[in-house]
């Protein structure tokens, strides 16, 4: 990131949506958002070095166990994503996985995923489950492996480098309905958790399903998120990170930036362009540019965060 780009970012707060593709710059409440296309390895090195020191990397929707047309080798594409992260000149302090670690909540899928994550040079991994992770009849496979941090509740918070991270769960559906659910207990916990924080603390909230309504007919949203957003509005820098939809959709609202990540497994159709949000087969040479990770750096410590999306490219 050059100084020029940072200045532009400070002056302008644009509301934009970013999809794949090469090098378009968007301003982000004082930070910078740059989708990076790694079509050529040499260019990729230059782009990665521009990211600066990443605070954390977001990986999402790895879907270990998926083996259909849209991507017959999700293990291979996850390995490439992990290699990409491991290849960063400066390692992120932590990795956040925003869910759908597995495809069918099977024990062997979770075991393989854990094995693969252990190859990350960064050892601190935080996760929130997707609906594909909580589909086993007793909903124990995810929690027995990843539930400790939240005492099996699925929600918890932690601090790092002056940033307050809030991990939420919105995929435990106990009844029919359209969207994700946070529930009264979790919302009460968030209220208490945030109360002690000063408004100048940068906040990062992450959960699997989008915490704002992107497309209701496909369940892309969280029904009771408005109560959460009301709690977040007073903070000077809020970054909301989600997965679930396997494509980048972004919204900026005041000091809040909402961002969904690409998957490392397969893309999904743009809202409303198919019968439902299932796997989308694209030509083989396009697949890598539709998959990727996001890297978040602190731009003007400790005030704001800059978010960069990086694709696996077609190398």
């Amino acid at each position, binding site marked *: 990131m050059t100084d020029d780009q940072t200045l532009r970012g400070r002056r302008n707060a644009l509301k934009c949506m970013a999809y794949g593709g090469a090098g378009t710059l968007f301003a982000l409440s004082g930070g910078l958002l740059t989708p990076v296309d790694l079509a050529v390895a040499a260019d990729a090195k230059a782009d990665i070095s521009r990211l600066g020191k990443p605070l954390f990397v977001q990986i999402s929707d790895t879907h270990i166990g998926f083996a259909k047309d849209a991507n017959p080798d999700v293990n291979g594409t996850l390995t490439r994503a992990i290699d990409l992260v491991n290849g960063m000149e400066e390692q992120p302090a932590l990795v956040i996985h925003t869910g759908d670690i597995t495809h069918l*909540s099977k024990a062997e899928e979770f075991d393989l995923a854990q094995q693969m994550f252990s190859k990350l040079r960064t050892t601190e991994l935080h996760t929130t489950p997707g609906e594909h992770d909580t589909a086993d009849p007793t909903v124990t496979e995810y929690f027995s492996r990843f539930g400790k941090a939240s005492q099996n509740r699925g929600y918890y918070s932690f601090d790092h480098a002056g940033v307050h991270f809030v991990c939420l769960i919105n995929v435990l*559906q106990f009844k029919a*309905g359209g969207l994700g659910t946070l529930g009264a207990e979790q919302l009460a916990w968030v209220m208490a958790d945030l109360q002690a924080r000063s408004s100048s603390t940068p906040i990062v909230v992450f959960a699997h399903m989008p915490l704002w309504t992107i497309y209701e007919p*496909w369940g892309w949203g969280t029904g009771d998120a408005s109560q959460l957003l009301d709690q977040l509005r007073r903070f000077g820098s809020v970054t909301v990170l989600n997965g679930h939809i396997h494509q980048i959709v972004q919204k900026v609202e005041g000091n809040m930036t909402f961002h969904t990540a690409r998957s490392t497994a397969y893309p999904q159709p743009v809202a409303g362009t198919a019968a439902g949000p299932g796997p989308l087969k694209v030509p083989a040479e396009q697949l890598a540019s539709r998959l990727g990770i996001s890297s978040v750096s602190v731009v003007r410590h400790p005030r704001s965060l800059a978010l960069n999306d990086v694709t696996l490219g077609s190398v």
Partner: protein
Amino acid sequence: MTKSRRSLLGAVVMAALWLVCAGASAAGPAQGDRVLIKDFMFSPMALTTKVGGEVTWVNQDDEPHTVVSDTGLFRSGALDTGNSYTFKFDKPGTYHVFCSMHPQMTATIVVE
């Protein structure tokens, strides 16, 4: 073996074969009702069956789904493409099911 015993044995074998064939068939009123899961919908969305009847859900989508009763009575695991789940309804009543992964998908089963 006497003639009568042979014909009795033959009848038993035929009956056994018939039972095996009937048990192996996936559809048909004798074996219960079939619900297809396709295009993020249960099809049919409303179904009536008898007490003791079995309903089998078959996933034909590229996306996994689950079948969950909203009272917690039953819960399939993740059904991949081609997987199925069967539940036998022993008590009359109206049952609502949904997919816990895509909760906008709902259906009703009336058991008489």
